[in-house]
């Protein structure tokens, strides 16, 4: 079968990209290989690990479980789009740094985007709610404790509180 190409235009981190893509190109591979945005990680490629999580029209989704052709006309945010400007971090990223919420960092982009949407919906989560919201993102380094701490710290800071 000759590869059939689809013309797509998609907005990633506020920038519009027009490309021609093969039907079977996964959105995760499109983001990494076509756009060079390698912050989006590829882990299990069947939706379990959460490393490839992006925001698709504002909601977390597995980019390995979508085809690039589907993204035509849609809006994507990757980890590269979180920070407001070069040299500054998103408050969530700041909290991950402050609370040592990462070790190798491979799972971190997927976790950041998942938690970004979670905190927008639930600004005052309990620890249990944070753990449940993290349940779809596998981290094999940290044991999760510092990730939970980081999310709770970010939530407190975003509420304008300054926890001890």
């Amino acid at each position, binding site marked *: 079968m000759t590869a059939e190409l689809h013309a797509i235009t998609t907005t990633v981190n506020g920038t519009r990209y027009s490309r021609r893509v093969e039907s079977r190109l996964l959105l995760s591979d499109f983001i990494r290989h076509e756009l060079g945005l390698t912050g989006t990680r590829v882990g299990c490629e069947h939706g379990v690990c*959460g490393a490839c999580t992006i925001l698709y029209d504002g*909601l977390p989704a597995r980019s390995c479980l979508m*085809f690039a052709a589907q993204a*035509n006309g849609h809006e994507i945010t990757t980890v590269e789009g979180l920070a407001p400007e070069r040299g500054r971090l998103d408050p969530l990223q700041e909290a991950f740094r402050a609370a040592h919420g990462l070790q190798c960092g491979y799972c971190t982009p997927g976790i950041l985007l998942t938690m970004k949407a979670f905190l927008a919906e639930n600004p005052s989560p309990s620890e249990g709610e944070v753990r449940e919201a993290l349940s779809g993102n596998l981290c094999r380094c940290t044991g999760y404790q510092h990730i939970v701490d980081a999310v709770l710290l970010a939530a407190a800071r975003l509420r304008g509180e300054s926890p001890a």
Partner: protein
Amino acid sequence: MKPAPFRYVAAESLESALALKAEHGDDARFLAGGQSLIPAMNFRLAQPAVVLDINPLRELDFVRAAGGGLRIGALTRNRTLERDALVAQRQPLVREAVPHVAHPPIRNRGTLGGNLAHADPASELPALMLALGARLRAQSARGERWIEARDFFRGVFTTALRADELLAEVELPELPPRTGTCFMEVARRRGDYAMMGVAAVVTLGEADRCTHARLAYCNAGATPVSAASAAQALVGSPVGEGQIHDAAAIAQREIDPHGNVHASKAFQRHLAGVLTRRALRTAVDRAKAGG
């Protein structure tokens, strides 16, 4: 990993999608949320020649009141089922069960129709359809037909849908007054497939006598499994601890769990007994509180 090559078509209309499905039959697959189909394609367990993306068909994404019941479009995301006020009010069983379906990023994409058409017997939603007496509307270029949930699930990943049909819509009938429902499952981790799960529906009449009951299980056989004899044993008398224990014992014999590396058949039966008792107690309490 890469799926095998295929032709991708973003549906421009329901009619054109159904025409293409009629043309290609089993060689074509509808793509809804893709949370089951795309993993299968990534592993090359599924190698459709044509993928018909129905995501552009917004008319399949709806939750509507229909009399006292609900009609839900096939493209309705699990996320919507979890948050929709009408679903929570009229079908609290759905609201209670959906958070057990995988994780939020999966529920943001996964759809009701895709889940049911995939017909994984370990999934929660097919069991809910049995417990709630749902009807499913299949649509094709030839017309449409309604299929009762009990006739829809035929085997592992196998449904009554014909090669040219799309599952377009689901109808959940009104719950009678004084009906209590409950969904419970045991999974190894949050979001994992249940080792065993149960959906219980109990309706109470005069003097708290049970007038109707249904019990349906996930991961309890090749399809979602309805324990009709166990449910029937509840009907006709008030539901106390004795009736609940009897019904759970019958259900344990009625289901046919296959066992797996994480849970033996015996353990799955044990879980079914525990969960049935707990879910029935809760459903009865809720029925007494007004449903």
